């Protein structure tokens, strides 16, 4: 399985970062093609709502940054794992910046899907979504539920599904095995 991991941890030397790399290593050992994007090392200027990716250069952000890498690796994956520590009850602004710049992957036109208005697909296929959250002090079960609900809705708007959610309180091997099982 082709797996792309978006690492939204801003600190390189954190326990979450080490944990995530261990999971990536275990998945690679199992034969999965794993690409980890260290978002903190990418030049991501963030979405400014210009809609150039919808009405000027369809499918491509006009910013001269590395958001195209995020889009290319996301759409090329079968599973897109969003990974981030919890901060103030949600994932980091760093992960959100990358997600905001994924709107070129969908089309501005609306359609009705499952009784709701959603954006039309631009691509023939989209990756399934997974969410890996760092367990932080100050976050409770309700925070996890709310964060999961928001990312599940994004997955739905990206013509996909959130098929995996985990908190970083289990062994890397267990999480890697579970991820492999959703393949």
């Amino acid at each position: 399985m082709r797996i792309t991991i978006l690492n939204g941890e801003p600190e390189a030397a954190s326990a979450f970062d080490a944990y995530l790399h261990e999971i990536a290593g275990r998945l690679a050992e199992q034969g999965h093609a794993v690409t980890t994007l260290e978002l903190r090392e990418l030049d991501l200027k963030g979405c400014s709502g210009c809609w150039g990716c919808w009405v000027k250069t369809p499918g491509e952000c006009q910013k001269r940054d590395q958001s195209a890498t995020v889009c290319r690796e996301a759409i090329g994956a079968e599973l897109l794992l969003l990974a981030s520590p919890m901060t103030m009850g949600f994932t980091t602004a760093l992960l959100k910046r990358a997600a905001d710049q994924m709107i070129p992957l969908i089309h501005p036109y609306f359609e009705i899907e499952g009784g709701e208005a959603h954006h039309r697909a631009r691509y023939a296929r989209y990756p399934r979504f997974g969410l890996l959250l760092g367990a932080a002090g100050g976050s409770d079960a309700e925070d996890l539920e709310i964060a999961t609900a928001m990312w599940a809705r994004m997955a739905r708007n990206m013509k996909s599904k959130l098929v995996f959610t985990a908190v970083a309180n289990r062994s890397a091997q267990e999480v890697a095995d579970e991820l492999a099982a959703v393949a």
Partner: protein
Amino acid sequence: MNSLLLLNGSPRGPRSNSMKMLSRVAEGWVRAGGQAPEVLHLAQRAGFDRAVEAFSSAGAVLLGMPLYTDSMPAVVMAYIEALAPRVAVAHADGANPALGFLVQSGFPEALHSRPLERYLQKLALRLGSPYAGTIVRGGGESLQAMPDEANRRLWARLRVLGEQLARDRRFGEAELKAVAGREHFSPCQAALVKLIFKLPVVQFYWNGQLKKNGAWERRFVAPYGLAK
């Protein structure tokens, strides 16, 4: 303290739909006797820094934003991260200001914004801030396309919400519901809208821009994979 910190969390800055709506709430706030609010744009570096500094001394804070990939824009999350030190004082009485929010989206139904609303309510609780409520409104992108006159009823309702915020530190449920409009489509409406969305005229806003930019022929390209 009848001071209001008006924070625009739109990545577009001053020329945004969020700001258009926030301005109407601010008019109501002033009409009900509140001081002219300090207006800051989080997308501007100076505005962001000042917003972090001014948070604790404000009487009330109204933070508005567009729904971005089904949650808050990254710049708003960065602001929320910057407020983390205020959690430590959350339980000191009156340490953090009353908090109200505005979330507008391009979707015609309000339901898309509800998970974010839930997050924002929890954020107020986390900060120990009295929660004024969240104004949710769909169809935001059409505000750009419509003349101001066409939005007169919406502006009037937003002014009433501003008055309520100044008077009661809380938005009224009836006005919130009226501004939110349609929560979701009924099965019959969904079937009808499904057909309507297929009419080219419905996409006039996007099609007009695609044509103006010479991008119409390329509107369905898929640069990173196989097109639908």
